[in-house]
């Protein structure tokens, strides 16, 4: 699947064409290790130097690429990439088994679980600001989340979707995306589990007009 979408180009203020695709390969994973991680690490160092709280340091570096390669063959796992300007700008991994709804009104029903979603660090404002730069492209998280909702609909899950949010993204998923906070998950470092009902998902992808 390859679909043309539009990203916001922060530098020009204009919209620029990008490609959303599901034919993710091991090369894309390697690209994130090679191009993304050093920038995140460097930005974290600058954040630490600037006295930003909390001070973040890398916990570990071990990355098992062989397991990721096996994931590419699983029907239950779907990856999406977002490419623009010849580089990977965002990556997402979805699971269609292994998690079910926790909201009481839809408890036990299948959903698409967002296992991983990341924008390239040069698109992330707090990281770029730490390096004295402006972010490059905007809207990546939103576009990937939209793709996840569409996947849920395609699978017959009616848009039901869930994820564990980082503390700094909770407000985005709650307020901007209209998800429901179900509760903190002790099995996942107390991260907040957020979920979409079909109605909420529909409202999100119809730009709030549903």
């Amino acid at each position, binding site marked *: 699947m390859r679909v043309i979408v539009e990203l916001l180009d922060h530098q020009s203020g204009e919209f620029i064409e990008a490609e959303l695709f599901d034919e993710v390969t091991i090369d894309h994973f390697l690209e994130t290790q090679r191009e993304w991680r050093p920038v995140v690490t460097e930005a974290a160092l600058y954040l630490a130097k600037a006295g930003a709280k909390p001070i973040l340091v890398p916990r570990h570096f071990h990355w098992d690429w062989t397991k990721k390669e096996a994931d590419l063959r699983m029907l239950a796992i779907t990856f999406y990439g977002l490419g623009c300007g010849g580089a990977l700008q965002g990556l997402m991994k979805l699971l269609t088994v292994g998690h079910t709804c926790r909201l009481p009104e839809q408890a036990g029903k299948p959903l698409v679980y967002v296992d*991983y979603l990341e924008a390239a660090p040069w698109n992330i404002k707090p990281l770029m600001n730490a390096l004295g730069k402006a972010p490059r492209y905007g809207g990546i998280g939103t576009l990937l989340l939209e793709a996840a909702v569409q996947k849920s609909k395609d699978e017959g899950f009616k848009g039901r979707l869930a994820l564990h949010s980082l503390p*700094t993204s909770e407000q985005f998923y709650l307020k901007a995306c209209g998800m429901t906070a179900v509760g903190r998950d002790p099995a996942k470092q107390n991260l907040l589990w957020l979920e979409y009902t079909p109605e909420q998902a529909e409202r999100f992808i119809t730009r709030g007009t549903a």
Partner: protein
Amino acid sequence: MNKELDRKWLKKHAALEDGGFVSVGGFISTFEEKSSAGEEPVGVDALKHAFVKLLQLKRRERKLSVEELAAKADLDMAELLRIESDEGYVAAPFSVHKLAEFFKLPERPLMALAGLLKVKDAQFQQQALRFAARSEPVEKLSKEEHRALEEYVKFLCER
């Protein structure tokens, strides 16, 4: 879908995304908080990781297997395997000395990376972190890895 509405919506969401790290399980989630601003931002773990990465890259640069390196550097192969695969393992000082000799690396900085010498030099630690973040365990050294390796060895030699 209405293009104008799409763009307006995306612009609004992009601005809201800018407020934080909109990611699920990304690199930033592999970072942990340091409790005190006075501590060095990089711990011994990062130095050990740089030590392992440096040895792996130097070995691969010479196209040596672990077994071949053990034979040529006159080291115990089991220990060398342990050094490369177990970052919790503290190498014997003599082994680090032999590795420094074989790869023509400065011994004291290498001992510090191996966790055998204490170092409070923030720049030393940060360079170790940068170096480790730039290298990956794939078989052939990429141009970037070559460059990172050369730069880092140069830095170590200047300590």
